[in-house]
């Protein structure tokens, strides 16, 4: 009897390890990087199949050939497990086109979901590949050359190996997520378009996440199949992915310990407890009710405790004690009172890495015949403008004049329908937006665009280019490799923060700030991206006029220090005070260019504004 319990215990250990590993991997993708991999189970299944057929003998020779499958290389442990992890990483690659830059997250997710459904059907129907619906069975036990797989000792060793590997996965993922690279992943999760505009390569980041998570999922499948020795389509229906999502939602997305807790609570405990329900007349009743319970769990948790039992923890980068952090949400009424800090002492030339060259007012950014057409409607038509280095150029125009669209084409957020964009002597019309940002052409957005679940300081630091820890390999090399540089980056961001008077909010989630404060965060973040040319889309919208003028003073100073700014703005008093020259757009074309004083004398400009 006792041995029976011991065997049961080892089963629990292995299942717990496998489920934890799967949840850690999915949480890395979904909770940290925002990649909703609804086809996650494909990767676990691929790993299980790969490990099985790599370790099994040739199909014709095995057990009288009662099952059909490909490969059958008869490899000794650990080669099948390594092979499984590689297969898991490789099959992630075709899915990269789905989760790449352009596609909405939920569309990519249904693409992955449908892939899971269809691949399951195909494997089920096409028997020669992996023995169809019956699946592969009698998979050799990995350490059977040394121990008797039926023995209790073997079972405990297996459980031990599974747990050690899971712990390894945990530490590896933590190393990755708690690095500058992990910060970039979370920034992408919170707002991918903005991360892109700050120079993050979304496609590469998402590909990396899919490959690493896929390899880990596959490894978990390999461990499972080595233990239960069979694997069939029934074990990896698309809905199994939903169980893992339920686990992460319950445990806490964006928290590694939450993923493990979720794995223990949902797939493991839940399945084990319901195992003890006495059988009833209707054999599908209990499994059906289990699925209903999973569905309820998802909905109830998302409603009552959307961050899970162990919510994502906040990273306190400023070094201040957590207790000192202002965490109550700021109010918009307080915006009038925002005072910039010692901003006058900031040396922008130094802070923005602008170098010592004097302003030469050469043309640094220009367009020729820039045109944008949506669905046959021309929004921007034949716009040719020249932006001079070291100047604060304004762009005004009535609503719908095409200001934001022009700015988006300059930054690469939208592709131009025709025409060219030239930056610093290079034709960048076809350069993607993140590469433009890396080259120093950085934009801000009209709508609030902070990374909500990053602290203010994290928002700022995430924008700093060329961080040695901001790549997968860099993150693996650990804190010893990137730590001191990151510390310097944090100090630099703190200096800017102090200049703009928001030091007390350093460790506050950016999503909890007031409208005016978020504007400031966005401007500071753009500055830390080290722009040569900064494109501001209505930076003063919703900002108290007093504050707007203080910001304007600083923008002027930045231009004196060698930066170039193009600012779209509605507020004419801002244009009067700070911008020279000013470009007037109306109905998608350039109406006039000149100083505000000149423009006010031109009847067509006045009319466009009054009529528009």
């Amino acid at each position, binding site marked *: 009897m006792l041995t029976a319990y011991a065997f049961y215990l080892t089963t629990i250990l292995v299942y717990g390890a496998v489920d934890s590993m799967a949840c850690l991997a999915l949480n890395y993708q979904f909770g940290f990087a*925002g990649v*909703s991999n*609804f086809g996650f189970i494909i990767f676990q299944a691929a790993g299980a199949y790969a490990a099985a057929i790599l370790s099994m003998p040739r199909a014709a020779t095995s057990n009288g050939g009662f099952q059909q499958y490909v490969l059958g290389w008869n490899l000794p442990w650990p080669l099948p497990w390594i092979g499984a992890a590689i297969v898991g990483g490789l099959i992630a690659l075709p899915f990269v*086109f*789905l989760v790449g830059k*352009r*596609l*909405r*997250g*939920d*569309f*990519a*997710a*249904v*693409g992955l*979901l*449908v*892939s899971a*459904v*269809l691949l399951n*059907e*195909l494997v089920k*129907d096409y028997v020669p590949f992996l023995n169809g619906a019956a699946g592969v069975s009698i998979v050799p036990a990995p350490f059977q050359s040394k121990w008797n797989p039926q023995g209790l000792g073997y079972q405990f060793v297996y459980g031990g190996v599974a747990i050690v590997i899971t712990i390894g996965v945990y530490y590896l993922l933590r190393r990755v997520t708690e690095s500058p690279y992990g910060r970039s992943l979370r920034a992408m999760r919170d707002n991918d378009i903005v991360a892109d505009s700050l120079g993050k390569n979304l496609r590469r980041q998402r590909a990396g996440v899919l490959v690493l998570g896929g390899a880990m999922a596959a490894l978990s499948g390999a461990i499972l199949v080595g233990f239960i020795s069979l694997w069939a389509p029934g074990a990896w229906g698309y*809905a199994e992915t*939903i169980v893992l*999502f*339920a686990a992460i*939602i319950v445990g806490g997305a964006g928290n590694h310990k939450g993923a493990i807790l979720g794995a223990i609570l949902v797939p493991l405990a839940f399945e084990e407890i319901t195992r003890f329900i006495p059988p009833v007349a*209707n*054999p*599908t*009743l209990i*499994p*059906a*009710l*289990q*699925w*209903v319970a*999973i*569905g*309820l*769990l*998802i*909905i109830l948790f*998302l*409603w009552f405790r*959307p961050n899970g039992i162990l919510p994502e923890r906040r990273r306190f980068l400023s070094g201040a004690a957590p207790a000192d952090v202002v965490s109550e949400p700021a109010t918009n009424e307080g915006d009038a009172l925002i005072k910039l800090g010692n901003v006058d002492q900031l040396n922008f030339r130094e802070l923005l890495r602008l170098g010592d060259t004097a302003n030469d007012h050469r043309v640094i950014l220009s367009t020729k015949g820039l045109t944008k057409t*949506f*669905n*046959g409607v021309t929004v921007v038509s034949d716009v040719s403008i020249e932006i001079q280095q070291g100047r604060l150029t304004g762009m005004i125009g009535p609503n719908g004049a095409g200001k934001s669209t022009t700015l988006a084409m300059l930054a690469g957020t939208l592709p131009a329908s025709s025409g060219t964009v030239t930056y610093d002597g290079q034709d960048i019309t076809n350069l993607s937006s993140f590469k433009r940002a890396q080259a120093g052409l950085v934009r801000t957005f009209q709508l609030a665009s902070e990374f909500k679940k990053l602290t203010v300081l994290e928002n700022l630091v995430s924008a700093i280019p060329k961080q040695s820890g901001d790549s997968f390999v860099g993150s693996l090399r650990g804190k010893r490799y990137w730590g001191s540089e990151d510390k310097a980056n944090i100090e630099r961001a703190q200096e800017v923060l102090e200049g703009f008077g928001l030091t007390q909010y350093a460790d506050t989630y950016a999503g909890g700030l007031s409208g005016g404060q978020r504007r400031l965060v966005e401007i500071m973040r753009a500055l830390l991206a080290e722009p040569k040319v900064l494109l501001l889309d209505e930076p003063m919208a919703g900002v108290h006029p007093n504050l707007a003028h203080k910001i304007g003073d600083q923008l002027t100073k930045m231009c004196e220090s060698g930066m170039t700014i193009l600012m779209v703005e509605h507020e004419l008093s801002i244009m009067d005070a700070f911008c020279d020259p000013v470009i007037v757009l109306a109905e998608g074309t350039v109406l006039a260019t000149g100083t505000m004083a000149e423009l006010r004398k031109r009847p067509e400009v006045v009319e466009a504004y009054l009529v528009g």
Partner: protein
Amino acid sequence: MSSFGFGLITAAVLAIATVGFTMQFAVTNVLNLAYGSVMINSAYVTYYLNIHHVTIWLALIGGVITGAVTSWCLNRFIFTPFQRRNLAPITVVIVALGVDLIGTFGLQAVVGSSYVAFHQTAGHEYHFAGMILNGLQLIILGLCAVVLGLIHWLLKYTRLGKAMRATSANPNLARNSGVKTQFIISTTWLISGALCGLAGTVFAMNTGVFEATSAQLYIVLLLAAMFLGGPGEPYGAMFGALIIGLSTEISAAYINPQYKEVIAFLVLLGMLAFRPYGIFGSEKTL
């Protein structure tokens, strides 16, 4: 040619389903992955009325009402409250998956897992243009033509339809122009839900026998048809359903019928990868 006939029927059922699905997406921006479970629940209501001596065509109305009411409730009590919390669109999709599990397996817990069939007669066989269609299939085709005609009339010629299109194109602008968007969204879910209920019932009629999980794979066809015509585009949905319905059935005549969904799957992935706004749509519509 006979597979062309099958394809037409499949396309007809799919068209009714996809128009409802895409209308829900149009006005609320929700990919309602619970759609298949509402379909099959509606089919079961029709079935229970049917075995209690209600003729199938009368019982069908019960299915339609079930679909309409269930969908309305889903939007009113689940999707809308979640959307008001300003969550990422993916959260609502996950919620929809949860609802799908509850709907499908809740039904299975109640009715068990055995297959059932309506009391219906296939009627006479008619041969024309090389196709063989029975009376039942002709009625399904006719029903589809009438329903799609009604949807066309609704969208093109009624104030309600115009308000729906306005809400779909730009909810804020529609609201500011005096459209009662909340009412329009509710009504859209009621109408699209009726289509869902109807689609579920005719789907079950067409397959002959069905059980609680029979519509689980249907979401693949739905999504393929919707993305082919452009998400949120009712006319695109009709076009997409025609192409997907015909191509799956005709391809089944040449390859192993077990793989017939593969065409739909490839179409869906291709659309997602290259033209996620549909063949006729433009990027601005997303």
